[in-house]
Protein backbone atom coordinates (compact mmCIF):
# COMPACT_ATOMS: atom_id res chain seq x y z
CA UNK A 1 0.00 0.00 0.00
CA UNK A 2 2.85 2.35 0.93
CA UNK A 3 4.70 1.52 -2.29
CA UNK A 4 1.56 2.18 -4.32
CA UNK A 5 1.11 5.51 -2.57
CA UNK A 6 4.73 6.44 -3.27
CA UNK A 7 4.28 5.67 -6.95
CA UNK A 8 1.07 7.69 -7.08
CA UNK A 9 2.70 10.64 -5.31
CA UNK A 10 5.76 10.61 -7.55
CA UNK A 11 3.79 10.84 -10.75
CA UNK A 12 1.87 14.01 -9.97
CA UNK A 13 2.80 16.70 -12.44
CA UNK A 14 3.11 20.10 -10.80
CA UNK A 15 2.98 22.93 -13.31
CA UNK A 16 2.62 26.67 -12.76
CA UNK A 17 -1.13 26.59 -13.28
CA UNK A 18 -1.74 23.85 -10.72
CA UNK A 19 0.56 25.60 -8.20
CA UNK A 20 -1.37 28.86 -8.71
CA UNK A 21 -4.71 27.06 -8.41
CA UNK A 22 -3.69 25.41 -5.12
CA UNK A 23 -2.26 28.66 -3.74
CA UNK A 24 -5.37 30.72 -4.57
CA UNK A 25 -7.85 28.09 -3.31
CA UNK A 26 -5.65 27.72 -0.21
CA UNK A 27 -5.81 31.46 0.40
CA UNK A 28 -9.59 31.70 -0.07
CA UNK A 29 -10.14 28.55 2.00
CA UNK A 30 -7.92 29.96 4.76
CA UNK A 31 -9.81 33.25 4.71
CA UNK A 32 -13.15 31.47 5.17
CA UNK A 33 -11.77 29.12 7.85
CA UNK A 34 -10.23 31.98 9.81
CA UNK A 35 -13.57 33.78 9.74
CA UNK A 36 -16.19 31.06 10.32
CA UNK A 37 -13.93 28.42 11.91
CA UNK A 38 -14.19 25.81 9.17
CA UNK A 39 -15.52 25.10 5.73
CA UNK A 40 -12.63 26.44 3.72
CA UNK A 41 -10.99 23.22 2.66
CA UNK A 42 -13.84 21.23 1.16
CA UNK A 43 -13.06 22.46 -2.36
CA UNK A 44 -9.43 21.35 -2.13
CA UNK A 45 -9.93 17.57 -2.16
CA UNK A 46 -12.05 17.50 -5.36
CA UNK A 47 -9.84 20.29 -6.73
CA UNK A 48 -6.67 18.26 -6.24
CA UNK A 49 -8.36 15.19 -7.69
CA UNK A 50 -9.25 17.19 -10.80
CA UNK A 51 -5.51 17.91 -11.16
CA UNK A 52 -4.85 14.18 -11.24
CA UNK A 53 -3.97 13.57 -7.60
CA UNK A 54 -5.22 10.16 -6.35
CA UNK A 55 -8.17 10.44 -3.92
CA UNK A 56 -6.38 9.14 -0.82
CA UNK A 57 -3.33 11.39 -1.41
CA UNK A 58 -5.63 14.39 -1.96
CA UNK A 59 -7.47 13.73 1.32
CA UNK A 60 -4.19 13.15 3.22
CA UNK A 61 -2.42 16.24 1.82
CA UNK A 62 -5.50 18.40 2.43
CA UNK A 63 -5.79 17.22 6.03
CA UNK A 64 -2.09 17.80 6.62
CA UNK A 65 -2.51 21.45 5.63
CA UNK A 66 -5.72 21.87 7.66
CA UNK A 67 -4.30 21.27 11.11
CA UNK A 68 -1.43 23.80 11.01
CA UNK A 69 -3.82 26.31 9.43
CA UNK A 70 -6.32 25.71 12.24
CA UNK A 71 -3.49 26.01 14.78
CA UNK A 72 -2.36 29.40 13.44
CA UNK A 73 -5.98 30.62 13.21
CA UNK A 74 -6.77 29.41 16.74
CA UNK A 75 -3.63 31.10 18.11
CA UNK A 76 -4.50 34.37 16.39
CA UNK A 77 -8.08 34.32 17.65
CA UNK A 78 -6.93 33.20 21.11
CA UNK A 79 -4.92 36.42 21.26
CA UNK A 80 -8.15 38.32 20.52
CA UNK A 81 -9.80 36.54 23.48
CA UNK A 82 -12.26 34.62 21.31
CA UNK A 83 -11.19 31.00 21.92
CA UNK A 84 -12.66 28.87 24.70
CA UNK A 85 -9.93 26.27 25.07
CA UNK A 86 -11.85 24.13 27.57
CA UNK A 87 -14.89 23.97 25.29
CA UNK A 88 -12.69 23.16 22.29
CA UNK A 89 -10.88 20.29 24.03
CA UNK A 90 -14.13 18.89 25.50
CA UNK A 91 -15.76 18.94 22.07
CA UNK A 92 -12.69 17.49 20.34
CA UNK A 93 -12.64 14.50 22.73
CA UNK A 94 -16.23 13.54 21.86
CA UNK A 95 -15.72 14.43 18.20
CA UNK A 96 -12.96 11.79 18.06
CA UNK A 97 -15.54 9.14 19.01
CA UNK A 98 -17.90 10.54 16.36
CA UNK A 99 -15.17 10.23 13.71
CA UNK A 100 -14.65 6.55 14.54
CA UNK A 101 -18.39 5.82 14.36
CA UNK A 102 -18.66 7.83 11.11
CA UNK A 103 -15.84 5.81 9.53
CA UNK A 104 -17.48 2.51 10.57
CA UNK A 105 -20.81 3.61 8.99
CA UNK A 106 -18.98 4.60 5.80
CA UNK A 107 -17.20 1.24 5.67
CA UNK A 108 -20.49 -0.63 6.20
CA UNK A 109 -22.23 1.33 3.41
CA UNK A 110 -19.24 0.73 1.14
CA UNK A 111 -19.37 -3.03 1.76
CA UNK A 112 -23.14 -3.23 1.15
CA UNK A 113 -23.75 -0.74 -1.71
CA UNK A 114 -20.27 -0.20 -3.13
CA UNK A 115 -18.60 3.07 -4.11
CA UNK A 116 -21.69 4.60 -5.77
CA UNK A 117 -23.74 3.89 -2.63
CA UNK A 118 -21.07 5.50 -0.45
CA UNK A 119 -20.94 8.58 -2.72
CA UNK A 120 -24.74 8.83 -2.65
CA UNK A 121 -24.76 8.61 1.17
CA UNK A 122 -22.13 11.38 1.41
CA UNK A 123 -24.04 13.62 -1.02
CA UNK A 124 -27.37 13.05 0.73
CA UNK A 125 -25.75 13.76 4.13
CA UNK A 126 -24.38 17.00 2.64
CA UNK A 127 -27.80 18.04 1.31
CA UNK A 128 -29.89 17.11 4.38
CA UNK A 129 -27.52 18.57 7.00
CA UNK A 130 -26.50 21.67 5.10
CA UNK A 131 -30.02 22.60 3.98
CA UNK A 132 -31.55 22.17 7.45
CA UNK A 133 -28.73 23.64 9.56
CA UNK A 134 -27.53 26.14 6.95
CA UNK A 135 -31.07 27.33 6.31
CA UNK A 136 -31.60 27.93 10.04
CA UNK A 137 -28.28 29.79 10.41
CA UNK A 138 -29.01 31.91 7.33
CA UNK A 139 -32.53 32.81 8.56
CA UNK A 140 -31.14 33.77 11.96
CA UNK A 141 -28.46 35.96 10.33
CA UNK A 142 -31.07 37.70 8.17
CA UNK A 143 -33.29 38.34 11.18
CA UNK A 144 -30.37 39.87 13.10
CA UNK A 145 -29.33 41.98 10.11
CA UNK A 146 -32.90 43.21 9.57
CA UNK A 147 -33.93 44.00 13.13
CA UNK A 148 -30.48 44.68 14.56
CA UNK A 149 -29.77 44.19 18.25
CA UNK A 150 -27.42 41.85 20.04
CA UNK A 151 -27.08 38.15 19.43
CA UNK A 152 -29.26 36.35 21.99
CA UNK A 153 -28.84 32.91 23.52
CA UNK A 154 -31.25 30.48 21.87
CA UNK A 155 -34.18 29.11 23.88
CA UNK A 156 -32.83 25.55 23.47
CA UNK A 157 -29.44 26.55 24.92
CA UNK A 158 -31.15 28.39 27.82
CA UNK A 159 -33.25 25.31 28.61
CA UNK A 160 -30.22 22.99 28.47
CA UNK A 161 -28.17 25.34 30.65
CA UNK A 162 -30.91 25.34 33.28
CA UNK A 163 -30.78 21.53 33.70
CA UNK A 164 -28.43 20.61 36.57
CA UNK A 165 -27.00 17.30 35.40
CA UNK A 166 -23.54 16.64 36.92
CA UNK A 167 -20.81 17.19 35.94
CA UNK A 168 -21.61 20.84 35.22
CA UNK A 169 -18.82 22.68 33.39
CA UNK A 170 -18.24 26.41 33.34
CA UNK A 171 -16.79 27.59 30.02
CA UNK A 172 -15.27 30.92 30.97
CA UNK A 173 -14.69 32.59 27.59
CA UNK A 174 -18.01 31.38 26.19
CA UNK A 175 -19.58 32.49 29.48
CA UNK A 176 -21.66 29.34 29.61
CA UNK A 177 -22.37 26.87 32.43
CA UNK A 178 -23.76 23.64 31.05
CA UNK A 179 -23.76 19.92 31.79
CA UNK A 180 -20.95 17.95 30.13
CA UNK A 181 -23.59 15.52 28.80
CA UNK A 182 -25.11 18.21 26.55
CA UNK A 183 -21.77 18.91 24.90
CA UNK A 184 -21.39 15.21 24.02
CA UNK A 185 -24.02 15.01 21.21
CA UNK A 186 -22.70 18.24 19.64
CA UNK A 187 -19.12 16.98 19.65
CA UNK A 188 -20.20 13.53 18.47
CA UNK A 189 -22.22 14.99 15.56
CA UNK A 190 -19.25 17.21 14.64
CA UNK A 191 -17.00 14.15 14.42
CA UNK A 192 -19.59 12.13 12.51
CA UNK A 193 -19.97 14.91 9.94
CA UNK A 194 -16.19 15.34 9.71
CA UNK A 195 -15.86 11.63 8.89
CA UNK A 196 -18.69 11.82 6.35
CA UNK A 197 -18.30 15.12 4.50
CA UNK A 198 -14.90 16.24 5.89
CA UNK A 199 -16.28 19.52 7.29
CA UNK A 200 -17.34 18.93 10.88
CA UNK A 201 -17.57 22.65 11.56
CA UNK A 202 -20.79 22.91 9.57
CA UNK A 203 -22.47 21.24 12.54
CA UNK A 204 -19.94 22.07 15.26
CA UNK A 205 -20.27 25.86 15.04
CA UNK A 206 -24.11 25.99 14.84
CA UNK A 207 -24.21 23.32 17.59
CA UNK A 208 -22.07 25.46 19.89
CA UNK A 209 -24.23 28.51 19.13
CA UNK A 210 -27.75 27.07 19.31
CA UNK A 211 -27.37 24.06 21.67
CA UNK A 212 -24.58 25.13 24.02
CA UNK A 213 -25.19 28.87 23.96
CA UNK A 214 -21.80 30.28 22.90
CA UNK A 215 -21.70 33.41 20.76
CA UNK A 216 -20.94 32.97 17.06
CA UNK A 217 -17.61 34.74 17.61
CA UNK A 218 -16.52 32.28 20.34
CA UNK A 219 -18.05 29.25 18.55
CA UNK A 220 -16.26 29.93 15.25
CA UNK A 221 -12.94 30.54 17.06
CA UNK A 222 -13.31 27.43 19.24
CA UNK A 223 -14.06 25.29 16.19
CA UNK A 224 -10.47 25.96 15.07
CA UNK A 225 -9.22 24.15 18.21
CA UNK A 226 -11.42 21.13 17.37
CA UNK A 227 -10.19 21.23 13.75
CA UNK A 228 -6.58 21.29 14.97
CA UNK A 229 -6.97 18.32 17.32
CA UNK A 230 -8.87 16.18 14.80
CA UNK A 231 -6.70 17.27 11.87
CA UNK A 232 -3.49 16.49 13.74
CA UNK A 233 -4.63 12.97 14.66
CA UNK A 234 -5.82 12.34 11.08
CA UNK A 235 -2.62 13.69 9.52
CA UNK A 236 -0.40 11.49 11.69
CA UNK A 237 -2.50 8.51 10.62
CA UNK A 238 -2.17 9.37 6.91
CA UNK A 239 1.56 10.14 7.27
CA UNK A 240 2.16 6.73 8.88
CA UNK A 241 0.76 5.21 5.67
CA UNK A 242 3.04 7.49 3.58
CA UNK A 243 0.14 9.19 1.81
CA UNK A 244 1.01 12.87 2.41
CA UNK A 245 2.40 14.74 -0.59
CA UNK A 246 4.31 17.42 1.26
CA UNK A 247 4.72 19.57 -1.87
CA UNK A 248 0.95 19.90 -2.28
CA UNK A 249 0.52 20.51 1.45
CA UNK A 250 3.13 23.27 1.51
CA UNK A 251 1.75 25.06 -1.56
CA UNK A 252 -1.76 25.11 -0.06
CA UNK A 253 -0.31 26.15 3.29
CA UNK A 254 1.48 29.09 1.66
CA UNK A 255 -1.88 30.56 0.66
CA UNK A 256 -3.97 29.41 3.60
CA UNK A 257 -1.70 30.85 6.32
CA UNK A 258 -2.08 34.28 4.70
CA UNK A 259 -5.84 33.78 4.39
CA UNK A 260 -6.51 32.39 7.86
CA UNK A 261 -4.89 35.39 9.54
CA UNK A 262 -6.82 37.84 7.38
CA UNK A 263 -10.03 35.98 8.25
CA UNK A 264 -9.19 36.10 11.96
CA UNK A 265 -8.52 39.86 11.74
CA UNK A 266 -11.85 40.19 9.92
CA UNK A 267 -13.77 38.83 12.92
CA UNK A 268 -12.66 41.83 14.96
CA UNK A 269 -14.12 44.22 12.39
CA UNK A 270 -17.61 42.92 11.72
CA UNK A 271 -20.83 42.33 13.64
CA UNK A 272 -21.58 38.74 14.71
CA UNK A 273 -24.47 38.25 12.30
CA UNK A 274 -21.98 38.55 9.41
CA UNK A 275 -20.26 35.34 10.62
CA UNK A 276 -23.66 33.59 10.58
CA UNK A 277 -24.55 35.07 7.18
CA UNK A 278 -21.29 33.87 5.58
CA UNK A 279 -21.63 30.43 7.13
CA UNK A 280 -25.30 30.03 6.13
CA UNK A 281 -24.66 31.20 2.56
CA UNK A 282 -21.71 28.83 2.02
CA UNK A 283 -23.66 25.90 3.51
CA UNK A 284 -26.65 26.47 1.23
CA UNK A 285 -24.54 26.84 -1.93
CA UNK A 286 -22.53 23.71 -1.08
CA UNK A 287 -25.78 21.81 -0.45
CA UNK A 288 -26.97 22.89 -3.91
CA UNK A 289 -23.67 21.73 -5.40
CA UNK A 290 -23.96 18.27 -3.81
CA UNK A 291 -27.63 17.99 -4.83
CA UNK A 292 -26.44 18.29 -8.46
CA UNK A 293 -24.23 15.21 -7.98
CA UNK A 294 -27.07 13.02 -6.63
CA UNK A 295 -28.61 11.96 -10.03
CA UNK A 296 -25.23 10.61 -11.19
CA UNK A 297 -24.91 8.33 -8.15
CA UNK A 298 -28.56 7.24 -8.42
CA UNK A 299 -27.81 6.33 -12.04
CA UNK A 300 -24.72 4.31 -10.99
CA UNK A 301 -26.85 2.37 -8.51
CA UNK A 302 -29.36 1.65 -11.30
CA UNK A 303 -32.21 3.41 -9.47
CA UNK A 304 -32.78 5.94 -12.28
CA UNK A 305 -31.52 6.27 -15.83
CA UNK A 306 -29.10 9.14 -16.30
CA UNK A 307 -27.33 9.66 -19.67
CA UNK A 308 -23.53 9.69 -19.34
CA UNK A 309 -23.24 13.19 -20.88
CA UNK A 310 -25.74 14.61 -18.41
CA UNK A 311 -23.93 12.92 -15.52
CA UNK A 312 -20.59 14.47 -16.54
CA UNK A 313 -22.18 17.88 -17.04
CA UNK A 314 -23.81 17.72 -13.61
CA UNK A 315 -20.47 16.72 -12.02
CA UNK A 316 -18.73 19.71 -13.59
CA UNK A 317 -21.58 22.03 -12.59
CA UNK A 318 -21.43 20.63 -9.06
CA UNK A 319 -17.70 21.38 -8.74
CA UNK A 320 -18.15 24.87 -10.24
CA UNK A 321 -20.98 25.61 -7.79
CA UNK A 322 -18.80 24.44 -4.89
CA UNK A 323 -16.01 26.81 -5.99
CA UNK A 324 -18.61 29.58 -6.37
CA UNK A 325 -19.80 28.94 -2.80
CA UNK A 326 -16.29 29.46 -1.47
CA UNK A 327 -15.84 32.53 -3.68
CA UNK A 328 -19.12 34.09 -2.54
CA UNK A 329 -18.17 33.50 1.11
CA UNK A 330 -14.76 35.12 0.59
CA UNK A 331 -16.33 38.09 -1.22
CA UNK A 332 -18.80 38.58 1.65
CA UNK A 333 -15.96 38.56 4.21
CA UNK A 334 -13.75 40.98 2.24
CA UNK A 335 -16.77 43.22 1.52
CA UNK A 336 -17.72 43.37 5.20
CA UNK A 337 -14.10 44.11 6.19
CA UNK A 338 -13.84 46.86 3.59
CA UNK A 339 -17.09 48.47 4.77
CA UNK A 340 -15.89 48.36 8.35
CA UNK A 341 -12.57 50.01 7.44
CA UNK A 342 -14.32 52.78 5.54
CA UNK A 343 -16.67 53.37 8.49
CA UNK A 344 -13.77 53.37 10.92
CA UNK A 345 -11.85 55.89 8.82
CA UNK A 346 -14.72 58.40 8.77
CA UNK A 347 -14.73 59.40 12.46
CA UNK A 348 -10.93 59.71 12.35
CA UNK A 349 -11.16 62.36 9.64
CA UNK A 350 -13.80 64.19 11.65
CA UNK A 351 -11.50 64.02 14.65
CA UNK A 352 -8.62 65.52 12.65
CA UNK A 353 -10.85 68.41 11.53
CA UNK A 354 -11.92 68.94 15.13
CA UNK A 355 -8.31 68.95 16.33
CA UNK A 356 -7.34 71.43 13.62
CA UNK A 357 -10.18 73.73 14.64
CA UNK A 358 -9.02 73.47 18.29
CA UNK A 359 -5.49 74.44 17.23
CA UNK A 360 -6.81 77.33 15.12
CA UNK A 361 -8.86 78.58 18.08
CA UNK A 362 -5.74 78.63 20.29
Amino acid at each position, binding site marked *: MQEAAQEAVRFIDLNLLSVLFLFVVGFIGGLVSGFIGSGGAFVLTPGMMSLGVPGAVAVASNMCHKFPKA*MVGAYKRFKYGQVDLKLGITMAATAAIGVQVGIRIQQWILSVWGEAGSDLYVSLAFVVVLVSVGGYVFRDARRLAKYGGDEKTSSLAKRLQSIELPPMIHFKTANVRISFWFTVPVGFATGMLAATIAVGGFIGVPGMIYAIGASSLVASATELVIAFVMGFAGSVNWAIHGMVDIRLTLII*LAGSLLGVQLGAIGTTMVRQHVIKAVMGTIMLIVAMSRAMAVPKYLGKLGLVEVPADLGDLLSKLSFATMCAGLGVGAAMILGAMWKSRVKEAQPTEAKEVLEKSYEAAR
Partner: protein
Amino acid sequence: MARQQEEAGRPVGKMVLFGAITAGLYGAVFAHSDWVMEHFTRGAWYAALPVATVFLFSFVHGAFASHLWSVLGVGVSRKPAQPSPRKTRRLVRRRRPQPQLRLNA
Protein backbone atom coordinates in the same frame (compact mmCIF):
# COMPACT_ATOMS: atom_id res chain seq x y z
CA MET B 1 1.57 62.89 12.45
CA ALA B 2 -0.44 60.02 13.87
CA ARG B 3 -0.20 58.20 10.56
CA GLN B 4 3.60 58.61 10.48
CA GLN B 5 3.87 57.18 13.98
CA GLU B 6 1.67 54.28 12.95
CA GLU B 7 3.85 53.56 9.90
CA ALA B 8 7.01 53.79 11.96
CA GLY B 9 5.65 51.06 14.25
CA ARG B 10 5.07 48.62 11.41
CA PRO B 11 7.34 45.56 11.58
CA VAL B 12 8.99 45.83 8.15
CA GLY B 13 12.28 44.31 9.35
CA LYS B 14 10.61 41.30 10.93
CA MET B 15 8.49 40.80 7.83
CA VAL B 16 11.58 40.79 5.59
CA LEU B 17 13.44 38.44 7.95
CA PHE B 18 10.62 35.88 8.22
CA GLY B 19 9.87 36.29 4.51
CA ALA B 20 13.47 35.44 3.63
CA ILE B 21 13.47 32.40 5.96
CA THR B 22 10.15 31.24 4.45
CA ALA B 23 11.47 31.64 0.90
CA GLY B 24 14.63 29.76 1.89
CA LEU B 25 12.64 26.87 3.37
CA TYR B 26 10.37 26.62 0.33
CA GLY B 27 13.41 26.81 -1.94
CA ALA B 28 15.15 24.02 0.01
CA VAL B 29 12.12 21.69 -0.20
CA PHE B 30 11.42 22.24 -3.89
CA ALA B 31 15.08 22.17 -4.94
CA HIS B 32 15.41 18.71 -3.36
CA SER B 33 11.86 17.55 -4.01
CA ASP B 34 12.94 14.08 -5.20
CA TRP B 35 14.84 13.35 -1.99
CA VAL B 36 12.05 14.91 0.09
CA MET B 37 9.32 12.85 -1.59
CA GLU B 38 11.32 9.66 -1.28
CA HIS B 39 11.86 10.03 2.45
CA PHE B 40 8.62 11.78 3.45
CA THR B 41 6.38 9.10 1.96
CA ARG B 42 8.11 6.11 3.53
CA GLY B 43 5.53 5.96 6.31
CA ALA B 44 6.00 4.43 9.79
CA TRP B 45 8.47 6.53 11.85
CA TYR B 46 9.18 8.69 8.79
CA ALA B 47 5.68 10.13 9.39
CA ALA B 48 7.38 12.54 11.79
CA LEU B 49 9.05 14.28 8.81
CA PRO B 50 5.94 15.75 7.10
CA VAL B 51 4.31 16.55 10.46
CA ALA B 52 7.41 18.34 11.80
CA THR B 53 7.82 20.16 8.48
CA VAL B 54 4.31 21.62 8.51
CA PHE B 55 4.83 22.73 12.14
CA LEU B 56 8.08 24.50 11.15
CA PHE B 57 6.50 26.12 8.08
CA SER B 58 3.42 27.21 10.00
CA PHE B 59 5.62 28.93 12.59
CA VAL B 60 7.90 30.73 10.12
CA HIS B 61 5.40 31.43 7.35
CA GLY B 62 2.70 32.21 9.93
CA ALA B 63 4.95 34.86 11.50
CA PHE B 64 5.70 36.29 8.04
CA ALA B 65 1.98 36.42 7.18
CA SER B 66 1.16 38.14 10.47
CA HIS B 67 3.84 40.81 9.93
CA LEU B 68 2.83 41.21 6.29
CA TRP B 69 -0.76 42.13 7.22
CA SER B 70 0.55 44.51 9.89
CA VAL B 71 2.84 46.21 7.36
CA LEU B 72 -0.03 46.48 4.89
CA GLY B 73 -2.06 48.19 7.61
CA VAL B 74 -4.60 45.40 7.98
CA GLY B 75 -4.82 45.16 11.73
CA VAL B 76 -7.29 44.51 14.47
CA SER B 77 -10.15 46.95 14.41
CA ARG B 78 -9.78 49.71 17.00
CA LYS B 79 -13.53 49.88 17.48
CA PRO B 80 -15.22 46.95 19.21
CA ALA B 81 -16.81 44.56 16.71
CA GLN B 82 -19.80 44.03 18.93
CA PRO B 83 -22.22 46.67 20.17
CA SER B 84 -21.54 47.87 23.68
CA PRO B 85 -23.56 50.16 25.91
CA ARG B 86 -23.05 53.77 25.03
CA LYS B 87 -20.82 55.67 27.35
CA THR B 88 -21.82 59.16 28.34
CA ARG B 89 -19.33 61.62 26.96
CA ARG B 90 -17.88 64.38 29.01
CA LEU B 91 -18.74 67.67 27.42
CA VAL B 92 -16.54 69.83 29.65
CA ARG B 93 -12.83 69.30 29.73
CA ARG B 94 -11.68 68.72 33.26
CA ARG B 95 -8.32 69.87 34.39
CA ARG B 96 -5.92 67.27 35.63
CA PRO B 97 -5.36 67.42 39.39
CA GLN B 98 -2.12 69.24 40.07
CA PRO B 99 0.16 68.52 43.03
CA GLN B 100 -0.30 71.10 45.72
CA LEU B 101 1.93 72.02 48.58
CA ARG B 102 0.24 71.50 51.93
CA LEU B 103 1.53 71.93 55.39
CA ASN B 104 0.07 69.56 57.95
CA ALA B 105 0.84 71.29 61.16
